[in-house]
C-alpha cells in the first residue's frame, strides 16, 4: 500500500497485553478459524455456482470482527457493511444459517432474501450487513441514539450500551459517513466508528482516494471525537487497544473513531484479480496471519499442545462442512415468500411478515 509504509504490527508500539485466560484466547482462535474455514468454503461454493451475486470474503481480517465484538457485551448493537460474514459468525450466528443465506435458501438468516451482503441477526444484536458503501454509518448512529434514548428518556436511567458501526476505508469518502460523525458528535452518541482499514476500496489504494489517507484519525479530529489506531492483525493487541475505547464510550456516552489496520488476503470480491497490488505486499501481510499468530502465542506462552490445535481445526472443518450440507439440504424459499416481509401489515398482494427459522427455533 502506497502510503501505509509500515505493516500493521509495526504501527502498534504498545507492549504485550496482560495475560488473558487461555480459554478466552482459545475461544477467539476458534472463532477466527471458523470464519476462515467458512470463507474458504464460500469461495469453493461460489466457484461451484452455489452462491450467486457478489461475495466478499473476510480472510485476513478475522481478528477485527472477533476482537472487537469480544470487547462488547452481548446486547451491544453492531452494524456493518457488505463484507459481513465474519461479523455474523463472530457475534454468534450459527454458520448453517449464514451459509444457507448465501445459498439463497429458506433456512438462511433472512430466508434467502438478503444474500451475502445482508446478514441480520436480531438475537445477536446484528443490525445488518448493508450493501451501499457508508450507508450503514448514519444507521449506526441511529442505533446509538435509540439505545441512549431508551435508557435515558424512556427508563430515566443512564445510557448503558455501546454501538459498533463498522465501515471500510472506502466509506471515508462518502457523505453519509461525514454526516454520521457530525451528528454523533453533536448528539453525544455512544457509537464507535470502526474503520476496517485494509488499504483499498475495491482496487483504489487509500492514497488515491482519501486525503490524509496516511492518518485517517484526522477525520475524527474535525468532529471532536477521540480516536485510536489499532492493530487489526494481532488480536491480543487489538483487544488491548480497543477495549478501553469501548469502556470509555460506554462511560462517557460519547462517540469514538478507530482506525483498525488490517489487510484482506483475497480480492475485493470473488471476481477481483488483484492487479492493483504486488505479490510481495500480499506476502508481507500473509506472513502476519492473525490466526497463525494467535495459535503460536497459545502454544508458546500458554503451553498449548499442538494436538489440541489440530483437533480444533478438525472440529471447525467438520462444523463448516456440516453447515454446507445443512444449507444444501435447506429448501429454496417457497414462492409465497416473494410477497411476505414487504409490509408488516397484510394488505393487497402482501402477505404480512414472519420471522426466519433461525429466530423461530430460538423462541420455542
Amino acid at each position, binding site marked *: 500500500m502506497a502510503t501505509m509504509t509500515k505493516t500493521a504490527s509495526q504501527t502498534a508500539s504498545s507492549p504485550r497485553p496482560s495475560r488473558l485466560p487461555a480459554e478466552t484466547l482459545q475461544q477467539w482462535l476458534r472463532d477466527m478459524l471458523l470464519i476462515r474455514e467458512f470463507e474458504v468454503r464460500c469461495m469453493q461454493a461460489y466457484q461451484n455456482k452455489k452462491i450467486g451475486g457478489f461475495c466478499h470474503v473476510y480472510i485476513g481480517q478475522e481478528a477485527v470482527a472477533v476482537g472487537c465484538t469480544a470487547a462488547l457485551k452481548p446486547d451491544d448493537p453492531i452494524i456493518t457493511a457488505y463484507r459481513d460474514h465474519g461479523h455474523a459468525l463472530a457475534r454468534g450466528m450459527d454458520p448453517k444459517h449464514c451459509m444457507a443465506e448465501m445459498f439463497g435458501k429458506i433456512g438462511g*438468516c*433472512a430466508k434467502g432474501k438478503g444474500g451475502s451482503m445482508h446478514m*441480520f441477526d436480531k438475537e445477536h444484536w446484528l443490525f445488518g450487513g448493508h450493501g451501499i458503501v457508508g450507508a450503514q454509518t*448514519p444507521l449506526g448512529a441511529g*442505533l446509538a441514539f435509540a439505545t441512549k*434514548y431508551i435508557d435515558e428518556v424512556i427508563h430515566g436511567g443512564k445510557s448503558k450500551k455501546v454501538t459498533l458501526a463498522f465501515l471500510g476505508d472506502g466509506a471515508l469518502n462518502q457523505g453519509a459517513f461525514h454526516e454520521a460523525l457530525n*451528528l454523533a458528535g453533536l448528539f453525544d452518541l455512544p457509537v464507535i466508528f470502526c474503520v476496517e482499514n485494509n488499504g483499498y476500496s475495491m482496487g483504489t489504494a487509500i492514497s488515491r482516494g482519501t486525503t490524509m489517507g496516511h492518518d485517517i484519525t484526522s477525520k475524527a479530529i474535525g468532529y471532536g471525537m477521540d480516536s485510536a489506531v489499532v492493530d487489526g492483525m494481532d488480536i491480543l493487541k487489538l483487544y488491548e487497544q480497543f477495549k478501553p475505547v469501548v469502556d470509555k464510550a460506554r462511560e462517557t456516552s460519547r462517540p469514538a473513531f478507530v482506525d483498525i489496520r488490517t489487510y484482506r488476503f483475497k480480492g475485493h470480491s470473488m471476481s477481483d484479480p488483484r492487479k492493483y497490488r504486488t505479490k510481495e505486499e500480499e506476502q508481507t501481510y500473509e506472513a502476519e496471519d492473525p490466526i497463525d499468530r494467535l495459535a503460536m502465542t497459545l502454544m508458546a506462552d500458554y503451553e498449548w499442545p499442538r494436538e489440541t490445535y489440530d483437533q480444533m481445526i478438525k472440529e471447525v472443518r467438520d462444523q463448516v462442512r456440516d453447515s454446507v450440507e445443512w444449507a444444501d439440504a435447506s429448501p429454496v424459499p417457497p414462492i409465497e415468500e416473494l410477497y*411476505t416481509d414487504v409490509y408488516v401489515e397484510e394488505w393487497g398482494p402482501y402477505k404480512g411478515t414472519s*420471522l426466519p427459522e433461525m429466530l423461530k427455533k430460538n423462541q420455542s
Partner: protein
Amino acid sequence: MTREIEFRDAIREAMSEEMRRDQRVFLMGEEVAQYNGAYKVSKGMLDEFGPRRVVDTPISESGFAGLCIGAAMMGLRPIVEFMSWSFSLVAADPILNNAPKMLYMSGGQFGCPIVIRGNNGAGGQLGSTHSWCVEGLFSNVPGMKMVMPFDPYDAKGMMKTAIRDDDPVFFLESERLLSTKGEVPSPEEDYTVPFGKAKIRRAGKDCTIVSFGRPLYFCLEAAEALAKDGIECEVIDGRTIRPLDLDTIIKSVVKTNYCVVVDQSWSFGSPGSEIAAQLHRLCFDHLDNYVGRVHSEDVPAPYAYNLEQEMLPNARKICEAVRAVTYNA
C-alpha cells in the same frame, strides 16, 4: 364536538397526542425545536416535550434520515421532518434503500416504523429544485406507504395512523395547504383515518375525477364550473397512494363510465399513469372513453408566476380534460 383549526395545527395535534401516548415517538428535523418549525408545524412542541424528543438537526438530511431509520430498527418511532420533500433527494439512499426494504432484506427481523413528513409540490415561485412532487418518483418503491392529506381532518387522522403504523410512511403535506382551515374533532376525541380508504369529496354521475392532496381544490373548482354546464362530476380523494383504494374508484367509474385522473407529478411513470392503466384493465367494459389525465407539464417548474401556474394542474385544464373524455369538447 368539533372546532375549526388550521392544517398545520392538525398535524401538530396528531404528533403531540401520539408523543403523549407513546414515549417511543420523537420528532427530528431542521428547525423543528428552537425555531418552532420552519412552517410552524411543530410550534410549542419543544416547550412541552423538551430537546430529547423534539430534536433540532443541522442541514444534513441524509445523516438524520439514516439516523432515524437506525432508531426505528431499534424499536423507536421517529417522525422525520423534511422542510421540503425537495430536500429528500439528498437522503434518497436511506429513505429508499433502507426504510422500505429493511423488513424484506432482513427476512422479517427488522421493520422500520418511521414517518417522514414535509412539504411536497410547488410552493409559490420557488423554482424547480424546491418544487418537487415526489409522489411520482417515490410511489414506485414497494415497502412504504404514501399519504397525501387534503384537509385538516384527514391530516390529523392520517398522521395518527401513520405514527401507529408498523411500516414506513411518507407523509406528503403542501405548503399551500398549511394555513387552510377545517372542522376537526376536539382533542379529547381520539380518532384516526385509515389508510387505503378513498373519500368522495363531491358526488356526481357524469364523470369521475380522481386526485390526491392539493390538486383536489382545482378538481372541486372544475366540478363547480362543469356543473353549471350540466356535467356532474364525482370527485374522489384517494387519500393514500400506497395503499391505493381502487375499489372506490372502480365503483364510481362503473357508475359514470368516464374518468379523469389529476396528479401534480409529471405524467411519465406516475400515480396518474398507474391509475389509468389499472382502470383500463379493470373497467375496460365500463369505460366509454380513455382515462383522461391532467399532470404537471413535462418541464422543470419555472419561477415566473404565470408560467408556474400554467405548469401545474389547474381548474381550466381539468375542465378541458373532462369535456374531452365525455365528448363535450
